[in-house]
């Protein structure tokens, strides 16, 4: 670490003075917070490569201190993916998440365009209603929907859970996409309409391509939300192995306490793999989406 060069006082003013003048106290505080936010995950990660005997008898840090005497193993991952229900759960998570992302993004994009650029009866009322539903926690929907699902046989079906996620995600999706689509330049559409294009064509050929940043931001948000969801899957899809998603499978391993318990570490990382990839590779869009949803962007 380099020693901080003392500089004329005027230069230390404000945030623009640059990073190099950070004091040791600032660096130490940042380091402590980063450590506190990393160590829990690191512990789980290290444990996932240790034998069940080691991880239940000594702390994970002992393996980091003595890396060459530790018996590192991939066995946990191998067993989680071949014997337990984890592989099926991974596929089930994909079956649930991809349509549960595409369907609400599509519905919301159509609706946002309609509300922003088309004139029709009931427009204000419908839009107001949609946005007002942002206040409703999804818990409010559980009991009556479950009753409907049970009487129509939709419980435990993928379509049922796609539609549930769509319904719960739509208010936010319409709210965010309307904000973006209503700000597109008007002239753009007018020239297309003069050329005889229908609103459907304008929507698919102009609006959608131009809205990619907003669509991507919401899509990533919804993807992570659905992938990480536990409650909706638990209530509408259930725990039977042909439909159980990763979070359900993981929670059932936590509860098992028996045979499978030492596979928990590897199972947890299997469940985190795809959201981490999506998140790290598309972070830019995601951050933009967070900002659009929270401060003016």
């Amino acid at each position, binding site marked *: 670490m380099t020693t901080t060069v003392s500089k004329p006082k005027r230069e230390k003013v404000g945030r623009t003075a640059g990073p190099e003048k950070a004091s040791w106290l600032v660096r130490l505080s940042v380091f402590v917070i980063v450590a506190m936010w990393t160590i829990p995950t690191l512990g*789980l990660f290290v444990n996932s490569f240790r034998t069940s005997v080691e991880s239940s008898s000594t702390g994970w840090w002992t393996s980091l201190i003595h890396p060459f005497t530790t018996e590192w193993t991939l066995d946990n991952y191998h067993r989680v993916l071949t014997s337990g229900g984890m592989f099926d759960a991974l596929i089930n998570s994909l079956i649930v998440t991809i*349509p549960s992302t595409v369907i609400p993004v599509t519905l919301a994009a159509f609706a946002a365009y309609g509300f922003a650029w088309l004139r029709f009866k009931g427009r204000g009322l419908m839009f107001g*209603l949609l946005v007002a539903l942002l206040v409703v926690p999804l818990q409010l929907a559980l009991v009556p929907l479950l009753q409907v699902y049970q009487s129509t046989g939709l419980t435990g079906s993928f379509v049922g859970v796609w539609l549930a996620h769509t319904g719960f995600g739509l208010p936010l999706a319409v709210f965010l996409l*309307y*904000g973006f689509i209503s700000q597109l330049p008007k002239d753009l559409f007018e020239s297309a309409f003069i050329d005889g294009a229908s609103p459907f064509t304008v929507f698919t050929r102009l609006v959608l391509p131009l809205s990619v940043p907003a669509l991507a931001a919401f899509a990533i948000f919804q993807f992570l939300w659905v992938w990480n969801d*536990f409650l909706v899957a638990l209530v509408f899809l259930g725990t039977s192995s042909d439909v159980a998603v990763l979070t359900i499978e993981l929670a059932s391993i936590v509860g098992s306490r028996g045979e499978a318990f030492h596979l928990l570490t590897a199972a947890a990382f299997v469940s985190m793999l795809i959201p981490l990839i999506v998140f790290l590779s598309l972070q830019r869009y995601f951050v933009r989406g967070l900002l659009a949803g929270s*401060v003016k962007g």
Partner: protein
Amino acid sequence: METITPTRPGLKVIQALLLAGVVVLVLWFGLGLLRQPDLFSSLPPNLSKLAQALIAIVLGVVGIWALFYSANTIVEALPGRATELLRPYVFVLPAVAVVTLYLIYPTVGTVVESVTNVPEGSGPLYNYTEAFTNPEVLLALRNNLIWLLLAPAASVLIGLVFAALVDRIKRESLAKSFVFMPLAVSFVGAAVIWKFVYAWKPPGQPQIGILNAAWVWVGGFFVNLGWIEQVEPIAWLQLIPWNTVALIAIMVWLQVGFAMVVLSAAIKGVPAELTEAARIDGASEFQSFIRIVVPSIWGALLTVYTTIAIAVLKVFDIIFVTTGGNFDTSVVAVRMYQEMFRFRNFAQATTMAVILLIAVIPIMVINIRNLRRQGIGK
């Protein structure tokens, strides 16, 4: 682009209806087939699962577009005036219909059930008096209140401090991504991660949870100094009332990244001249941060606080997976789930949901108003 020939509108309509009919039929049968568990039983199990996944995803993703396309084709095939009149509804009605079915209808249903599903001869508020006289529910409400007081404030405070500090160091984005990463982790995954942090082994055995290891290690120093008699590892998730704080720490760990990203962007948006002027007038860096930066990012602070507060009121997964609501850690959402599935008491379950709604509405109104004031999306 094809143009509508006004001479043969009838044929167009029939073609369009046929197309829509085919789309609906394909979807109906396709989705029905998916429910047959032994659909691909001739394939090896993993391949069969993959084939099922592929069909499901294609049906879901292509299906929604095919439905929109055919609805639009029908409307465009209609006579000119009808097209003009109906076209906007092709765009907005699907979304409106889905939220009507999935949010409006059940919300009304929940509220109605909570006041009508009562024993004969008792008033409409029966379920609510039951709830508010049940010590378990009162405990859940108290815990929700503790969560609400601690989690959003701690997340915003740590997020703000980190955003302010990290602004001054090299490798800013690297440091930020470490704190940001838990945002990609599910609540269930976070619960698993922290179960290992809080793990407990009997005294004398090596501790495998880092918190107890640190506790015993630090305690050992004090024992050596003779300040305390002995140090015992603690079962953090069973130690009432600190177990609720231990669970709140998981939530804070998850939410700080969100607070930090939003606040960091807001801090960078504060004009440097403002803080510089304050410094020239003799304010310390800390003073200028409190007096200039914090008031300038007030809107962002409020947004972050209310957003986290709403998430906290609805918290379910973390508690369900770690303690199952035992050891006095239950909250309203966990209570609701238990009423629904363990006790099969839909009357109480809906009552819990309405209590949640009443708690969330004021915070949500502040949140949305605040977003509007900041001109979201512009």
